[in-house]
């Protein structure tokens, strides 16, 4: 399995929010995250965006 670059990794991080990920995908993402601070920040921020979206719809 080739290593993911950041662009591919962010794509997967996003898709995981919309569909189930395969085991292989989950491992690839995890490995990348262990080595990449930028993507770790991005991952946390994605979670925040989802939370903000829900909050927006709720509070309006």
């Amino acid at each position, binding site marked *: 399995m080739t290593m993911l670059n*950041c662009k591919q990794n962010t794509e997967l991080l996003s898709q995981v929010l919309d569909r189930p990920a395969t085991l292989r995908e989950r491992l690839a993402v995890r490995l990348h995250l262990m080595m990449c601070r*930028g993507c770790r*920040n991005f991952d946390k921020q994605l979670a*925040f965006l989802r939370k*903000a979206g829900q909050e927006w*719809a709720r509070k309006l």
Partner: protein
Amino acid sequence: MSGGAIDPEELQQHRSYLLRYAILQLRDPHLAEDVVQETLVAAIEGRAKFSAQSSPRTWLVGILKHKILDVLRKRSREAELPVAEGEDPDELLDSLFQQDGHWATPPREWGDPEKSLENARFWEIFEQCCQRMPVKTARAFMMREFMDMSSAEICQELVISTTNCWVLLHRARLALRECLDLNWFGKAG
């Protein structure tokens, strides 16, 4: 007279937030007005069906969502939905990543972003950032994140493939993240 019915006047009080919701989705204030009007009429007519199990607000938003989807459906039948107007989709990706796929500028820490959820100014910026996305991208994003629809449902509504749907959602998140970073988190820090 039914005991569970709500007062029409009480329903009117929710008008302004219904309008915000509709404007963000439809991007057309007049159309949004119409949809909200229809929603309130439907709610008042059907108020006997309102059950105290949900809040009036939740109930109204539920009706509004259906009305918005009706409008969107009608529109996509009229083939009015531009595929990628204005913005070149690759432009965003090219600006965020280098040729080899590494970040041009790796995302920085946002500290404790949850605090922002209580800040009214944050929500103004959040809405502006959503409005700045290309229409179809924004629509997919809002259906997913605000209306809690599955990507399968979104593909159906927007008449696009599943892959295309994931691409739109990803692009929306990248754009929103970038916009919030530039206009909120970068400044707040």
